[in-house]
């Protein structure tokens, strides 16, 4: 192999040891082509886990081309200049490696897990799919057919139906309000030249975060990446997502299906990950519905009344925007009762201070369980990529406990009043509508 380090140099930026998570020892550098590399050297097992985030999500879909970003991501592993789809899967399967690509609204992701002894082969494949995908017509047709089948199949899952209806009502005419897969009609209309143009424009190293965890040093992997990605030139830089301009609220949506249970979502717009109230909100939501058996909604809806098996709430926070959702399932007949109780719990969060005990339980869990978020190489890889994407800083694990510990009961009530909006709640009920309220 020829050595070519001329184009890509390694610029180590910071090397931090983290007392809170001493085992992680992340390192970060920016490769010469602009790709951001994060690593954590873990020598216990002869394996390497890789997570790659790229600014190529469905928010970049053009009108009438909904599903383009997703189809592009799905086709990455179905043909390159050097290998057919079958040769790619033969190679991967023979070394027992996993390589998968996915797509969200903001980011496309590529994940790989490979034995250390096969790392070179793995990186070669990874580089090929990112820089030399060919999008053969036959593979495009095949993937289109497969996506259209999944669009159909997801109608079988009532929880999925509820999620899609909720998103569409919350973010009308926005990439965040429609499925990344697009619709049957839009997928059918996607052209090969659009795929190639999308790939050329958005799959670029300076739009890419690569996180590598396992049996390899920072130096070793950086060199290997410089070699593998030597022919990948920079493109347009990554851009910040734009928050949806139109936000829906206050609607009730009912979908009729032959079900025994009502699948319910109550929710509205939330906050972006950059919002400084994010940590107070996490504490507040733990008490409301994030904390399993320590949460109020689970207590009143499941334990006291036996109305549901699963009930939980969460604030999911992306760059620039976010959502709040409370999700539960109960038999059709008790849907309205469960909704009434959930709403009462949401109001109570706003009206009264939480107890000292609730506050300390929430903080103790959030800080104490923090290391469980990265107790495998795979989780560390995902975590480091997220830390970089949201610009939390490599010292984030050290700062996390303080961010949580300083939250007060008043802060909790303040964020409940500010970010829980009973009048704005969108209610989605996927159920046998004739039986709703039929007690």
């Amino acid at each position, binding site marked *: 192999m020829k050595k070519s380090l001329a184009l890509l140099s390694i610029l180590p930026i910071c090397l931090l040891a983290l007392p809170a*998570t*001493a085992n992680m020892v992340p390192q970060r550098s920016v490769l010469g082509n602009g790709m951001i590399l994060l690593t954590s050297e*873990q020598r*216990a097992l*002869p*394996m390497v*886990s890789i997570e790659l985030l790229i600014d190529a999500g469905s928010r970049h879909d053009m009108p009438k081309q909904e599903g383009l970003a997703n189809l592009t991501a799905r086709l990455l592993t179905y043909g390159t200049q050097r290998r057919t*789809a*079958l040769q790619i*899967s033969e190679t*991967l*399967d*023979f*070394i*027992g*490696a*996993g390589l998968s690509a996915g797509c969200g609204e903001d980011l496309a992701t590529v994940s790989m897990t*490979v*034995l250390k002894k096969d790392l070179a082969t793995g990186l070669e494949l990874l580089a090929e799919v990112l820089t030399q995908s060919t999008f053969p017509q036959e593979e495009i047709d*095949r993937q289109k057919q*497969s996506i*259209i*089948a*999944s669009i*159909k*199949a997801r*109608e*079988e899952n*009532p929880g999925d139906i509820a999620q899609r209806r909720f998103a569409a009502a919350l973010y009308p005419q926005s990439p965040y309000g429609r499925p990344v897969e697009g619709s049957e009609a839009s997928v059918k209309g996607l052209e090969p030249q659009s795929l190639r143009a999308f790939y050329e424009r958005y799959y670029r190293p300076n739009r890419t975060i690569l996180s590598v965890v396992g049996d390899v040093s920072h130096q070793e992997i950086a060199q290997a990446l410089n070699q593998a990605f030597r022919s990948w030139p920079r493109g347009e830089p990554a851009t910040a997502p734009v928050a949806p301009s139109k936000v829906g609220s206050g609607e009730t949506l009912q979908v009729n*299906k*032959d*079900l025994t*249970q009502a699948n319910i979502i109550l929710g509205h717009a939330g906050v972006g990950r950059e919002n400084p109230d994010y940590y107070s909100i996490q504490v507040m939501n733990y008490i409301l519905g*994030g*904390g*399993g*058996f*320590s949460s109020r909604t689970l207590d009143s809806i499941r*334990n006291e009344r*036996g*109305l*549901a*098996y*699963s009930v939980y709430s*969460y604030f*999911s926070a992306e760059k620039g925007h976010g959502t709040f959702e409370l999700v539960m*399932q*109960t038999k059709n007949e008790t849907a309205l009762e469960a909704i009434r109780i959930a709403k009462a719990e949401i109001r109570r969060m706003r009206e009264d201070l939480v107890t000292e005990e609730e506050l*300390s*339980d929430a903080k*103790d869990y959030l800080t*104490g*369980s923090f290391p*469980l978020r990265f*107790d*495998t190489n*795979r989780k560390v890889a995902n975590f480091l990529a997220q830390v970089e994407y949201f610009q939390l800083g490599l010292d984030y694990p050290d700062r996390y406990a303080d961010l949580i510990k300083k939250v007060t009961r008043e802060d909790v009530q303040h964020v409940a009043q500010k970010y829980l909006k009973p009048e704005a709640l969108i209610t989605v009920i996927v159920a*046998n*509508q*004739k039986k709703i309220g039929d007690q």
Partner: protein
Amino acid sequence: MSQFIFCLIVFVSMLFSLPGAADATKVQEIVLDNGLKVLLLEDHKSPVVTFQVWYRVGSRNEKDGKSGLSHFLEHMMFKGTQKTKPEEYSRIIAKNGGRSNAFTSSDVTVYFATMSRDKIGIEIDLEADRMANALLGETYFEPEKKVIQEERRLRTEDSPVSALGEVAGAVAYMVHPYRRPVIGWMEDILSLTRQDLVDHYKLYYDPNNAFIVMAGDFSTAEMLPKIKAAFGSIPRGSEPPKVRAEEPPQQGERRVILKKEAELPFVLMYYHTPNLKSPDSYALDVLSVVLAGGRSSRLYHDLVYQKRLARSVDADYNGLSMDPSVFSVTAQVMPGKEPAEIEREIDSLLDQVKSELIGDRELQKAKNQIESAFVFGQDSIFGQAMKIGYYEAVGDWRLMDSYLDGIRKVTREDIQRVARQYLDRDRRTVGVLIPTKESAS
């Protein structure tokens, strides 16, 4: 997203499509005087410890009319003891930065928590307390029964593919209790009484019918005395009754159709096979990978990629079961295709494996996949503990030691032989989901 699920139900253990093994040589076994076996695996790569109590009881031990009893008891085990209030167990673990849960399968009921080494002692004491002193309080019985009905609606009644698996399981077995769903039939759940639970608890929740698996960042010298102090004084119980049911050999294919609101048809085939106590289990494992391990596998390549008959396809051999279980082949049908077409194609692919030896490279590829999955599986402390637990439940955790060796010895001829012997149409049950599109009434 913080999805919270209280307990998992595993009908046939789908957890490990590629059963591998933890580094068994490092497992230490200690048996306390009361019969409680303790299995310890120190692994310091991540600062967490998982502690699990495995009871050798599941739906396999239930009687007709009482299905779902083990699972119901699992729920009620969270309703307190003299020392802890209802649901306080979960709150104490959470407050101490831990994650806890439980699940019931056909063979076992398992309680576990994962937390830091300095807090795991709390979990040890709480598990010992509820092994001996669970109250199963009357007040909480009826509300919990409703919760379990909701769980059944969520997992089975409104999930077409799960519902098909349930009805096919009930047809594949006539005699053996594997014919009953772990969560129980709805009518059985409704008729269970608190006394049923109390009797079940008394009969099966004893130290001599349980074992502990602890894995992660701890020191045996520090933890073993803690475990002995917590569990050592719980008295040994009487030997619980053995399950002696044996499924008679099947003579002729069985078919079952489920008509339900759904979008795409689904085809499922259950072939009776031995469990991992049989030397054939290694070849069956490799066979499942040859058929459906990765995109280049035979079923995937043909059905999903080339012919586009199926949206997805799987082959799974469940050797980690106490009694002989099934080798399953499943496929979701592509829109516009017929289940019968898929069945014919699966049959012809299975016939090929029976009539012609697979390739050398194909065999090596399947073995490589199993070996790498074995390494990847060790990334998770929890996953390692689960593996130790399953092997111990089925026979002996030491069986893990010979696993990879057994896989390496499988030949092309073995693959052909087990395919011929077990993938026999006269010994299978075929289930087909036919979607209906009636409006809700």
